[in-house]
């Protein structure tokens, strides 16, 4: 088994409380399935939409990152899967895809001694 992170990009906007409700239920159901199948290493954390960016030799601190709504990283999750192909397959179940968001699937680098 290998480990992967799912980076969830894109902010969902809702036009009605019922739509928000449906989305929440889809997310809970998806995480439940991942957990039941033993793929959920750590549900991970939500991230605030923006914070500070520290950059360069000057250690300049600016507000940010102010990505476009569809590129904002909303959180991350740790997944266990056989390989990258299986991890990507799992990501296809993510409800964010239905609302214009994306899931970035990144293998954790292994320390090979």
């Amino acid at each position, binding site marked *: 088994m290998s480990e992967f992170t799912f980076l969830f990009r894109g902010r969902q906007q809702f036009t009605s409380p019922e739509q*928000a409700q449906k989305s929440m239920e889809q*997310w809970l159901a998806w995480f439940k399935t991942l957990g039941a199948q033993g793929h959920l290493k750590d549900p991970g954390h939500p991230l605030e939409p923006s914070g500070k960016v520290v950059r360069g030799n000057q250690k300049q601190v600016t507000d940010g990152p102010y990505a476009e709504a569809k590129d904002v990283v909303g959180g991350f999750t740790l997944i266990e899967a056989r390989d990258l192909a299986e991890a990507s397959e799992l990501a296809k179940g993510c409800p964010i895809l239905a609302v214009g968001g994306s899931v970035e699937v990144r293998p954790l680098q292994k320390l090979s001694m």
Partner: protein
Amino acid sequence: MDPRDHLFRRESGRMVAALTRLFGVHNLALAEDVVQEAFCRAIEVWRFRGVPDNPPAWLMATAKNCALDVLRRERTVRALAPAIEHHLRSEWTLAPAVEELFAPGVIKDDLLRMMFSCCHPRLPEPAQVALILNILCGFTVDEVAHAFMSGYAAIEKRITRAKKALATSEELFDVAVGSEFTARLPAVQRALYLLFNEGYHGASPQAAVRSELCHEAMRLTALLLQHPLGATPESYALSALMCLHAARLPARIDASGNLQALADQDRSKWDLELLGEGLKLLDMSATGSSLSEFHVEAAIAAFHAAATHTANTDWVAIASLYDTLMSLRPSPVVALNRAIAVAQRDGPERGLDEIRSIAERDRLARYPFYFAALGEFELQRGRPEAAREHFRCALNLARSPAERQFLDRRASACNPRST
């Protein structure tokens, strides 16, 4: 029912109401935006951490934090609630002022305050009901239109106009002023009654939508009963009549989605718990000296509930209650229902006499159940040909597939072969 069912919709009314008090009623749209933002954040966090122990409290706290962000950003360019505006302008007093507005004891009455505001005398009754559904029950324009079987454009216009009227009132209704509360209460009761009726008799073919409207009306009426000034005999009677009718909802639509007349309902499907609750509330409504239409309608429903069949229903009592109802709130529809009760008591000939003497009978010309009643009476008199004609008229006026199916079955019952 799972407490998580329709959580966002149920909480949105309370959140919009609380935020409106902060931003001022002219910023209703801003309050609605902040609620959407709070829902967004809730999902962003809950999807990773699970639903918290107390979701309503979590949502309200998030709405409060979103509101603080908005206020810091916009307080210099936007007019806010006049009464507290000066507190919101300064960073020193902003947070404490907002905390105070969101204290549990203070937000308790927010829904009620918004409910009374929606029933402004300047607004026509249909607009009041649409506004209650939209603001307090979290129904979108689309969902309201669907529930009323109306076009989107018409409902959108109705809600937009009503919101504009609401926005021009200086501030939300103050439920703490007893005399104003008591003066506005009948309008609120009436709007909740109409909301319930829309669900119970309404045109929407979908059973789910209908029972949702009924449940929303019952939830809001229960709020009235929790307020010392709202818990009047009329409110108890209104609540009783809703429970007694809602108890019959499971039997009103049969397994194949067909509308069932009271006489044909499988009464074992009635919700006994709701019936009991309704009878208890009816008891509690029997105080004071005034008799409202709600009392009479609840009493009629109670007589129906007490009977195991149409044949052993106390039609003498029901017909006389309809006499009382006619004196309290005369209308052609009430008169028609009275005629049906009279026919059950004295036979179809007398029922037809009663129908013929209904004042403003022409106002029933588009009402399918007027012709359906004529059809039933003719059928009982042994005149199936005439009966079929009436049922066909009714069929042409049917407002939903369920009504159409029901009336179609009644028309077929007039065929000599099908007996």
